[in-house]
């Protein structure tokens, strides 16, 4: 009796899940954002942030080996692909559907005539005209003041990197926020905020020094705009594309 009851309940649950999944053909922006988070934490390690790291598959451009429909994709996300590196997951229909919605949204945003970059040329711009290493570190070279870029190709999508080059303040990661303090004697320090609490502030300052301040010693403190300049108008569209192409090659897994 209990067994039959459980079975009936199970069927009802499946129907409910199926109904929920089909109802979610129109995900909200929050759903897509959520799908992006899941993608970055669970999928990007193999597929890459842009979804193009597995040969023959370019998730961000709607190129798949097997799947045709959203439902196919949800099935693959849940069950994996036998005898390949694609494992099964314990994602719910809803979670898997959100990842699919995210991938579809990325593909939609890609339909445009982007300039194709060249990574080798991009490295020259990075080291030269762009003076990027004066703030950023790649491997053991460059400054620690800005975000370390050694593995940025694993962490950020090319569209996000391009945005950071053109509009650095548009989307600053929480670990990369810039903070400024002014002591009562007028001396100021600016740096990457590492920790803040009711009484103290810790940062890596512009001289690459770990600094700690008591708020009671400060005249002023708060977030300021990123010291990263916009390269809009300073680098050509081709140079920007080249730098982005170079950045997506930075995949030092040591620092992950």
């Amino acid at each position, binding site marked *: 009796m209990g067994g039959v009851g459980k079975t009936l309940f199970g069927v009802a649950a499946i129907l409910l899940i199926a109904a929920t999944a089909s109802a979610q053909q129109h995900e909200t922006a929050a759903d897509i954002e959520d799908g992006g988070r899941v993608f970055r934490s669970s999928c990007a390690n193999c597929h890459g942030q842009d979804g193009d790291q597995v040969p023959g598959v370019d998730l961000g451009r709607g190129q798949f080996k097997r799947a045709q429909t959203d439902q196919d994709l949800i099935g693959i996300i849940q069950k994996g692909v036998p005898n390949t590196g694609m494992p099964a997951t314990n994602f719910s229909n809803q979670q898997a559907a959100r990842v699919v919605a995210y991938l579809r949204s990325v593909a939609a945003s890609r339909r445009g005539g982007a300039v194709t970059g060249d990574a080798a040329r991009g490295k020259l711009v990075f080291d030269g005209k762009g003076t990027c290493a004066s703030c950023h570190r790649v491997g*053991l070279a460059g400054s*620690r003041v800005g975000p*370390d870029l*050694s593995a940025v190709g694993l962490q950020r999508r090319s569209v996000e990197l391009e945005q950071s080059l053109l509009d650095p303040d548009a989307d600053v990661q929480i670990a990369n926020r810039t903070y400024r303090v002014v002591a009562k004697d007028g001396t100021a320090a600016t740096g990457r905020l*590492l*920790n803040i*609490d009711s*009484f*103290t502030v*810790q940062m*890596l300052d512009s001289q*690459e*020094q*770990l600094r*700690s301040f*008591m708020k009671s010693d400060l005249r002023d403190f708060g977030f300021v705009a990123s010291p990263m300049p916009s390269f809009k108008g300073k680098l050509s569209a081709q140079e920007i594309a080249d730098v982005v192409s170079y950045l997506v090659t930075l995949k030092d897994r*040591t*620092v992950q």
Partner: protein
Amino acid sequence: MTARVLALVLLLAASLQAQVTFDRILHPEKEPQNWLSYSGSPFNQRFSPLAQITTANVKNLELQWIWQAKSLEKYEATSIVVDGVLYTVQAPNDVVALDALTGRPYWTFTYENLPDARVCCGRVNRGVAILGDTLYMGTLDAHLVALDAKTGKLLWKTQVAKTGERYAITHAPTIVKDKVIVGTAGGDFGARGLIAAFDAKTGKEVWRIHTIPGPGEPGNDTWSGDSWKTGGAGVWNSGAYDPETNLVFFGTGNPAPDWDGRQRLGDNLYSDSVLALDADTGALKWHYQFTPHDEVDYDSTQVPVLADIQWRGRPRKVMLWANRNGLSYVLDRVTGEFLLGKPFVKVNWMDGFDPKGRPQRVPGKIPTKEGSMVMPTVLGATNWAPPSFSPRTNLLYVGAWENTGTVLTEGLSPRAAGRNPMGQSTLTPNLNKQEDGFGVIRALDPQTLEKKWDFPMNDITWGGVLTTAGDVLFSGGKEGYFFALDARTGALLWKMALGGQINSGPMSYSVNGRQYVTVAAGTGLFTFALRQ
């Protein structure tokens, strides 16, 4: 230079985090505000030149901050402090950078050990080392990792040995010139100990030696049959370095199987020994074995303490050692010559030394069918917790277990392959009565190895000892008290219950001219300074 300019220069020096050159590590006396290596100096004296806290004012110590580890493992790490930044380890292998003034975090590096990492006696770590802008840590899965000290970023990771062979690293690495030197734990599982040096910049191995000689090497014949292959002699505490002789010294652990010597007949070199190695090549220059053919568990993994003292009327470069086997030693650290040895607690397994310093065994003080009470206990007269030597008092201070013993009863059969790695004996500690065992901070005079004073505790102790130029001694114990003693008399000057076992050594540093003393208790780091 005027006093004002000097003060300004000192302030600048204190506030700028400069590269930690090896010369700085060699000369901690030039920068008393910092604590740059596990025991404060390559001589492992765990002596702070700071003198703001004195025997007169230590009663005014006040808690400044606590940092709580997000870990329930034992907190055995000694923190290091570099120009106002404190680096510590959240067990097993997360590294944390804190503001030494406030205890607030700069960054945390999280390390995930391989799932097959195994250790005998706790998922612990005893600390990091620094050179340049890079921190170094050995991990439970037997890797050596290098981190950017400014950001906590992983720079490289080198596998030292295989977890599948039961290797692990638990001690703070030892820096010598441009090398990082570590040894491997795992002796209780039979893993053959090794010590290896790595290029500090690249992580590339420079040299490696095994603590048990292989076939054809001197000492291999001190193991019967193939027992050398699984003979243990792990290394799980930091080394010492003497720049004048370019020798690096490490203590080695027990032979395996631990409590059963029947299938490893012989002295079992170089278990329970100190090894003096050429720091550039790893070549063995001399050794001294404290406990030949050990069947109790007398690891000699205490940190070697080096000191330059007057000895019988002339200066002598010595090594001082209060050993787990209950004996204290003075060795010539240039030649390895045995100068003096004496029990520092109740000892019954030996009753003297031959002229070369070999202990003379008392028959029957091994595992027997009837059971034999051996003193000191299996956990030792002292264990790994770091001792202190004060160049002001010329005394060696050790956290000791007095009057302890273990009844060793021989098992029916020797160890079967892959089973009972510790051996078949059973061990019954003899800790029923108060007088059967208690902890004590004991001051020993190296000239005689006689006790100068005692500070007894009710319970045993796993606490290390710190002394300072203010002639204050700091230590603690299993009861959770952190206390200050007069280093000259042993008189209790101050105490505070920290509510958790003290399983590490205290250390001292200063920021902005104010002296701090910090110690781990339970799973927290507690930092004190004089009331202002």
